[in-house]
């Protein structure tokens, strides 16, 4: 029998011959069939013609066809959690060194790892998860969707002949479930069509404005052998490097030069288009004050926050620079703020969100990087060097005075608020600014954390900020892992709240430990949904505020020991309770990272804002509900 099997594997004999042989040695037909099936060529890839440049025909299982098309798209990683049905994909990876598997132990973590990787690398990330785990994945897909991050999510769906029979794990048409949070969703309907469908999905995911795309592949198609053509994905790229119309550019350039009190706002689309340097050059050329991200809804900091031109948050009315006459919004989804007497120009990659809510005087759909570069060239061609210097000095001088004053004020605030335990957010901000390397990728998923960020430098030659716009929590640790995978040579910290940690649970730590990701996880533990409570009490002013009864947000009792959780995954770390201990702890974290090990820091943080002192929570004890001690 052994000899028979060897001959079959070496393709010396046909499957029929193998079956006959197995029956001859006494196996039932069913048993023989099952052995023959289990011996089908592992990777299933049998090229039928030699690779010919950008296209090649190949024969293989649906799973193998899928994998080879990913390879032809330059995909290096598949973020996954396995199911029985998608096994042909993993079978096809047994002998495929070009693609690495990165496992997550909860689908939300899988998507967040992929999302962090895509944000940090700019590449489309690929996720394969079990169909029954898709709803877990969807929570984090909201972040990906709202922030226009390229992602392909694949599940092995129920086999076509099984669909609709109300099988235990069959919920029909799972693909429509993702409709509101994907750019496109599809169910593959033939094995031979898998490469083409995959190309289409990857193309939709990556074409700006990018986003998640969902593909269900019935498991019988993944197992089925078929012949299809694999094509270089580059042949399907849609370059969205749209140059703005030259006339528009000239008009905007003139407005910016002539303006009495102009301002620029800048947003995530600049990050996505890698237009940071061009935007900075434009601002410096014209001495434009720059408002950055909104209080909520944005995920990156593309303009150097330490630049003397940087004002901070973009607001509906800006007390500084005051009455604005020309407002250029460059790639900020929340930057379009109309006001009487102001000319609002918005340059956006995403036509669906340009002028979606606010009336815009001049809307331009263009790549923000190219637009900024063209504006720089146009401005230089219209005004002399001397005039531009004059403008930049005049306007820039005023902005500098303002921003210096605000940095000084923050310095004073930090001094006033620096002491005491638990640690204050503001103090932690100052300490992180001191302790973190300039090239750190700072991955943030913490709500109150917004008050430590103004003490730190981001953008330009400074730290890179990566968060999520919609703040769907539970993203941060996995997001940090993904960022490190994209940039192994940069220091990475993942900063999460206690609430955020508990949303993902410790699941991301599993991947961090398994793949030896030398990042530092920081949990800012205030035993509270701190800002949630602030907003509930503040903006509602309802019965919870009036009675001082916090019905929902206190997270203590149990007082979770997060550092112990990390230890359970073999991730070393420590709990930092006093501000004086922060620097030494950061140094130990750095040493571990340098040595190739992850490190975990739990900071005990002061609750802040309304109701901060309250530890009361609605009492309910199940033990005391019992009438029997069982």
């Amino acid at each position, binding site marked *: 029998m052994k000899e028979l099997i060897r001959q079959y594997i070496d393709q010396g004999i046909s499957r029929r011959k193998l079956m006959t042989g197995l029956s001859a040695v006494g196996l039932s037909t069913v048993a023989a069939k099952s052995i023959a099936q289990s011996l089908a060529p592992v990777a299933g890839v049998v090229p039928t013609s030699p690779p010919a440049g950008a296209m090649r025909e190949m024969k293989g299982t649906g799973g193998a066809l899928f994998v080879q098309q990913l390879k032809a798209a330059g995909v290096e990683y598949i973020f996954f959690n396995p199911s029985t049905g998608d096994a042909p994909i993993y079978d096809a990876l047994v002998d495929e060194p070009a693609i690495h598997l990165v496992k997550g132990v909860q689908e939300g973590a899988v998507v967040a790892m992929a999302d962090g990787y895509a944000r940090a690398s700019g590449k489309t990330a690929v996720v394969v998860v079990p169909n029954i785990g898709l709803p877990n994945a969807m929570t984090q897909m909201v972040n990906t969707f709202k922030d226009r991050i390229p992602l392909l999510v694949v599940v092995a769906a129920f086999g076509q002949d099984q669909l609709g029979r109300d099988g235990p794990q069959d919920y029909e048409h799972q693909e429509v479930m993702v409709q509101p949070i994907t750019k496109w969703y599809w169910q593959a309907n033939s094995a031979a069509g898998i490469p083409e469908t995959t190309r289409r999905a990857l193309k939709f995911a990556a074409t700006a404005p990018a986003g998640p795309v969902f593909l269900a592949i019935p498991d019988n198609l993944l197992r089925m052998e078929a012949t299809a053509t694999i094509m270089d994905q580059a042949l399907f790229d849609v370059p969205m490097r749209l140059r703005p119309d030259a006339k528009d550019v000239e008009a905007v350039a003139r407005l910016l030069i002539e303006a009495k009190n102009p301002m620029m706002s800048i947003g995530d689309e600049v990050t996505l288009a890698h237009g940071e340097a061009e935007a900075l050059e434009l601002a410096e050329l014209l001495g434009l004050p720059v408002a950055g991200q909104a*209080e*909520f*809804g944005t995920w990156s900091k593309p303009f150097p926050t330490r630049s003397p031109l940087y*004002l*901070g*948050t973009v*607001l*509906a*009315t*800006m*007390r*500084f620079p005051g009455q604005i006459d020309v407002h250029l919004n460059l790639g900020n989804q929340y930057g379009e703020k109309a006001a009487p007497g102001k000319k609002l120009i918005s340059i956006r990659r995403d036509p669906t969100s340009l002028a979606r809510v606010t009336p815009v005087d001049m809307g331009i759909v263009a790549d923000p990087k190219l637009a900024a570069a063209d504006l720089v060239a146009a401005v230089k061609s219209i005004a002399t060097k001397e005039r531009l210097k004059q403008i930049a000095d005049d306007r820039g001088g005023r902005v500098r005075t*303002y921003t210096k*004053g*605000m940095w*000084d*004020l*923050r310095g*004073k*605030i930090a001094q*006033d*608020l620096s002491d005491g335990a638990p640690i204050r957010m*503001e103090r932690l901000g100052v300490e992180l600014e001191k302790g973190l390397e300039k090239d750190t990728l700072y991955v943030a998923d913490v709500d109150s954390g*917004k*008050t430590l960020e*103004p003490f730190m430098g981001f953008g330009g030659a400074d730290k890179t900020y990566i968060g999520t716009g919609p*703040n769907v929590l539970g993203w941060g640790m996995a997001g940090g892992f993904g960022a490190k995978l994209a940039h192994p040579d940069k220091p990475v910290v993942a900063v999460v709240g206690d609430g955020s940690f508990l949303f993902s649970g410790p699941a991301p730590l599993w991947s961090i430990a398994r793949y030896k990701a030398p990042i530092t996880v920081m949990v800012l533990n205030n035993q509270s949904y701190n800002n949630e409570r602030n*907003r509930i009490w*503040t*903006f*509602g*002013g309802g019965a919870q*505020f*009036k*009675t*001082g*009864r916090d019905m929902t947000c206190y997270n203590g009792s149990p007082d979770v020991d997060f550092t112990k959780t990390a230890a359970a995954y073999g991730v070393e770390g420590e709990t930092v309770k006093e501000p004086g201990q922060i620097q030494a702890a950061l140094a130990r974290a750095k040493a571990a990272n340098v040595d190739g090990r992850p490190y975990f820091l739990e900071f005990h943080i002061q609750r*802040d*804002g*309304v109701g*901060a*002192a*309250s*530890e*009361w929570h609605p*009492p309910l004890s199940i033990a005391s509900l019992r009438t029997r001690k069982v």
Partner: protein
Amino acid sequence: MRRFILIGAAAALVLVAAPLAAQPVVQLPEGEGRDVVATACSQCHALTAITQLRQGEQAWRYQVYDMVLRGAQIAPSEIDGTVKYLAASFGPGVPFPGPPAAPVTLPDGAGKELVEGGCALCHGLDRVVAAKRSKGEWNGIVKRMVFFGAPLAPDQATTIAAYLDSKFGAD
């Protein structure tokens, strides 16, 4: 000159599910610093966030600091004036908005009068007795109220915490 300036909440924070666009119009009392509050504090939330609170100068200072870190545009030279205005307009003893607080009869004990005198300046005593709290929590709350501006000497604060723990303590 008009006595009040009227401000509607122009921009609502998108993150909050409640329909904040329907926030009420708020009246700000006169005083130096009113214009700063009216223009620098109204972009992100309704001014009711401010007018419903009662706290002293130090607490208002920290509050303004917090808002500066969140993006409020107040020049350093305006901070002191703004804080003074807020403390004078929305400080302890200034009647708080809404219907009068439900009357509360406190049980007898050492500290009862201190609570009646020191704990009803910024909100009703109903808020004080609304929930049973652990000893540590009462200590924390009384400390916080002193930070807010409750006019209590340290030994008075200790007496109050002990009183509240004995009468309204949770195990």
